[in-house]
């Protein structure tokens, strides 16, 4: 199986979907002639032209809204946010219009758009460019959100998102764009709402998503080798819809749960997961549910401090050991 980057996997998904459906188009800042700020769309403008790859001015509210309006008539725009942080200037469009038009019309319409772009910290760019708003998206019924942790999922989830008839946010990660994974050449889809068990184990379940799932996988190996703790790692992949069954089955098996995410802790995704576990697996728990999240402050600029602020090996391992007292 070819080893390709996360960036290349997303590009393949976009390329294939543009070819599959004439209504799929990509719009955003620098997506066409500049080849993408993070080169995710590199070469696609040359291949597919102005109609399918659309450079926009720096006007997130206008082009997000236009994508939503166009989708009402059957166009399927994939909107790139250069940073997901920039979606904040388009909140009325994305969090009112994309999410609620279907509902407020009593189901007379749907909004098949994809909003994609990097949503991560750890890049030394300060608070305004480091948001992880998957919790905010998930808090809006009508929206869906996925956080691929690797190239295989990035491609499969992107294709599922584009074919989905509801608005889907795909949260990417700039720190993963250059990482490589095995991705099959034949076509595949990763369905929304299906978690992935990255590693099986018996003593502790780590539930995570996005890049943190990969960090958790590494931490799990250390925990096993250095501390003799067998860890199961559940990668959520999809935040809304959520694969509750896989989380609960794993926790019921191991009796312990550590939740790891880059979100800020208060009202983060893992606050919901934690509630789910206590409600539906209470009798199986041998210890309280613990969390490792970003340290609760605006994202700090200074690199060594930011590396400590977001989850890392050391903090995940310490979090796991705390559960075992």
């Amino acid at each position, binding site marked *: 199986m070819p080893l390709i980057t996360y960036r290349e996997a997303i590009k393949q998904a976009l390329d294939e979907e543009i070819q599959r459906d004439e*209504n799929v*188009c990509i719009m955003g800042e620098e997506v066409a002639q500049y080849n993408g700020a993070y080169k995710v769309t590199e070469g696609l403008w040359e291949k597919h032209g102005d*109609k399918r790859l659309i450079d*926009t*001015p720096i*006007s997130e*509210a*206008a*082009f*997000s*809204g*236009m*994508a*939503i*309006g*166009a*989708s*009402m*008539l*059957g*166009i399927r725009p994939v909107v790139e946010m250069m940073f997901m942080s920039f979606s904040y200037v388009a909140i*009325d*469009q994305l969090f*009112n*219009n994309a999410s609620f*038009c*279907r*509902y*407020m*019309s*009593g*189901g*007379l*319409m*749907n909004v*098949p758009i994809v909003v994609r772009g990097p949503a991560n910290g750890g890049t030394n760019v300060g608070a305004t460019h480091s948001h992880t708003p998957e919790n905010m998206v998930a808090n809006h*019924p*009508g929206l*869906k959100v996925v956080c691929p942790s690797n190239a295989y999922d990035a491609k499969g989830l992107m294709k599922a998102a584009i074919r*989905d*008839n*509801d608005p889907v946010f795909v949260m990417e990660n700039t720190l993963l764009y250059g990482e490589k994974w095995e991705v099959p050449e034949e076509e595949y889809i990763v*369905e*929304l*709402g*299906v978690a992935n068990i990255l590693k099986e184990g018996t003593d502790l379940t780590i539930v995570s998503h996005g890049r943190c799932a990969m960090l958790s996988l590494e931490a799990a190996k250390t925990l096993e080798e250095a501390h003799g703790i067998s860890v199961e790692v559940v990668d959520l992949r*999809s935040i*809304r*819809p*959520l*694969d*509750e069954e896989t989380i609960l089955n794993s926790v019921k098996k191991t009796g312990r749960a550590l939740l790891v995410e880059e979100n800020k802790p208060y009202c983060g995704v893992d606050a*919901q997961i934690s509630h789910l576990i206590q*409600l539906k697996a209470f009798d199986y728990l041998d210890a309280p549910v613990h969390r490792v999240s970003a340290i609760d402050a605006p994202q700090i600029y200074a690199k060594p401090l930011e590396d400590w602020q977001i989850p890392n090996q050391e903090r995940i391992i310490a979090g796991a050991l705390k559960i075992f007292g």
Partner: protein
Amino acid sequence: MANTKKKSATSTKKPKNFLAAPINKTLSKEEKLDLYRTIVGIRRFEERSLRAYNQGKIGGFLHLYIGQEAVASGIVSLMEEHDHIITAYRDHGHALAVGMTMNECMAEMYGKYTGCSKGKGGSMHFFAPDKNYWGGHGIVAGQTPLGAGLAFALKYKGLKGCALAFLGDGAVNQGSFMETLNLVSLWNIPVVFVIENNGYSMGTSLKRSSAEENLAHRADGFDIEWEVCDGHDVFEVREVANRAMKRAREELKPFLLEIRTYRYRGHSVADANHEKYRTKEEIEEYKRTKDPVNLIKSQLLADGTLTEDLAKKIDQEKKDEAEASAKFAEESPYAPREEIQTDVYWEVDNDADNKLKGTYFFND
């Protein structure tokens, strides 16, 4: 070719017989009567909904279109197969003009299951995609990029049509609208923005909210053609809007139309101050000289389309229809509680085979 020469917004217009303009001259008697029926219908519907609101039957907000009827009626009457329309929260007039029934609109305001949105949208959120009507939007100017998107889709698909995106004079000061003006000009998007300038953004007069009071002039900053006209004469609205719509359809160019109109009631019925931020005399003067219902009536009486008897008959029919819609709404049921969680996701609503994975709703 349509005359798209810019006009000065401040010039005093000579009274003109717009009924004699080419776009209006060809109207059949029945088409003119239809316009009359629409305008009278909106007026009677709004009056009846005001009563229902005051009786506590309608909750939330009620933004009445009384005084502005000729704007939506005139423009909608020009719509062709691939033309689409979207507006903000003062949306009842546009809804009735595109052919939505009084029953479904009134029932929606009552929050009933028989409403156009099953009681999930309310007064500000009427939709009828089958009539190319895309709402009904609650946030000021939030609908303007959506309207541009409808037009973008037409162009993308190679369909000859335009999108009509209505907004109020308060909406021109929102960033999303200005961003959208730039985009549609840059990309040659066939959208016609219609500013229904009723002089007040809620309780703040134009003078107190917009640095340049000639709102259409903003189009110059984006290299967009514009015109200004009055909104009380439905035939004037048609004459001017027709040029804008034709240009959009045929040349794929956006257009900014500012229509000077007036609302008799407050921003919403809850706006108890509306006779404080403007004078009673101002309201009465408009009613006396520029009332859209009286104006079309006198025009159609003069040209023989209408008789006093027929006018009375139509008026009574519309009153009865509005009354019946209130009765229909009153007697309709609310949606069952299970409906709270339908129409959220298309995929969930259409999952007959039970193929979807994962949890979509998160109540204990």
